[in-house]
């Protein structure tokens, strides 16, 4: 399973578009917001948690369709299905590779972008923690969505429609945790619930993803 993870990371680095694309998108969206809203620091700092979370959600969405599409087209997926590697494990490794190439860079870049939106100083730690806990769920849910749409032409749009509603709980609790941090309230509850979503999706979705892949490979 580690071999699959390493291969996917190597491919992401070599083929480009893995690390850079989502991160650049995140950067641009967040930078655009102050231009649109205007230079009102108070308003910006109030909407900053929501903006940062929505932007990271969209950035994560951007690279989802590549998770399985390439492996499906060149036949690797069928070969993996007949290998001793369980499909559930493959699904989880795919999600993990997606998180390392997308979610992790987003998490690390977010505090710098919070500065652009004049995010309250107390909220930085919670921004980092909430993204760290929340983005793995985005990758896992997205992997499930990607499995549903492999083999479809222009599946990317359908994928967004399928996956975005599933992202709502993570978004609500993630932004809420940062907002509470900014207001000096206790964000533990929101963080716990989000950690629950992440743990739950990693416990259940690999099985759903594997089942969908087996059907789609027929």
């Amino acid at each position, binding site marked *: 399973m*580690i071999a*699959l993870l390493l*291969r996917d990371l190597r*491919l992401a680095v070599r083929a480009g578009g893995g690390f850079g694309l989502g991160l650049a998108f995140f950067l641009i969206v967040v930078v655009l917001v102050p231009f649109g809203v205007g230079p009102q620091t108070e308003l910006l700092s109030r909407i900053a948690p929501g903006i940062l979370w929505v932007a990271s959600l969209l950035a994560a969405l951007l690279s989802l369709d590549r998770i399985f599409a390439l492996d499906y087209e060149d036949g690797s997926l069928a070969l993996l299905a007949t*290998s*001793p590697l369980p499909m559930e494990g493959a699904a989880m490794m795919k999600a993990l590779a997606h998180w390392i190439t997308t979610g992790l860079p987003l998490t690390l870049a977010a505090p710098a972008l919070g500065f652009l939106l004049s995010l309250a100083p107390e909220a930085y730690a919670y921004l980092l923690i909430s993204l760290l806990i929340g983005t793995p769920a985005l990758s896992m849910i997205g992997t499930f969505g990607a499995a549903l749409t492999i083999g479809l032409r222009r599946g990317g749009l359908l994928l967004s429609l399928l996956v975005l509603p599933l992202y709502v709980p993570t978004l609500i609790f993630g932004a809420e945790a940062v907002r509470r941090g900014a207001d000096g309230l206790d964000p533990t509850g929101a963080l716990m619930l989000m950690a629950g979503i992440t743990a739950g999706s990693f416990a259940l979705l690999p099985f759903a993803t594997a089942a969908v892949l087996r059907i789609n*490979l027929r």
Partner: protein
Amino acid sequence: MPVLADVSFSVAAGQALILRGPNGIGKTTLLRTLAGLQPAVAGEVSFPEDEGAYASHADGIKTALTVTENLKFWADVHGTALPDAIFDSFDLADLRARLGGTLSAGQKRRLGLARLGVIGRKVLFLDDPTVSLDGFSVKLFANWLQNTHLAAGGVAVIATHIDLGLDAPELDLPPFKAADDAGGGSNEAFL
């Protein structure tokens, strides 16, 4: 929807079976079913579990990985070592450090077939393995199959249109005919 019916065969260890039949008769369907990629409508397949491997025109070669890295990945997934001899068997020794994307169609095919020698599976299901191979490469492949794979007690079921020069029985797949019942004359209703 059933595509094949009344197909039955057994292959002994060290033996190959060649599947023959015109395009669209169901050779790929049969091989994919045998390999477990799709469920059979009826009937059963029996061979040692976790010993089957499937290979088709889609080789699963990553264009951004080198020849060695491509093979190493499949060796790691299957938990086997990467034998050095495999590069010679498929004439890949000079291509080790080349990226998959820079290989020609025939070289890719050889790399795809070399995967079979790496993963250490005994029962191979090969769907037209010689597409885009030149005459020399076909001999190379047939040679590996006969002297390395089959000689070690392996089994191969091969769908092909050419003569591989193997000493193997051939199975002609019969065209599938739908059963006559099911409200016979339904053809007219559709016409």
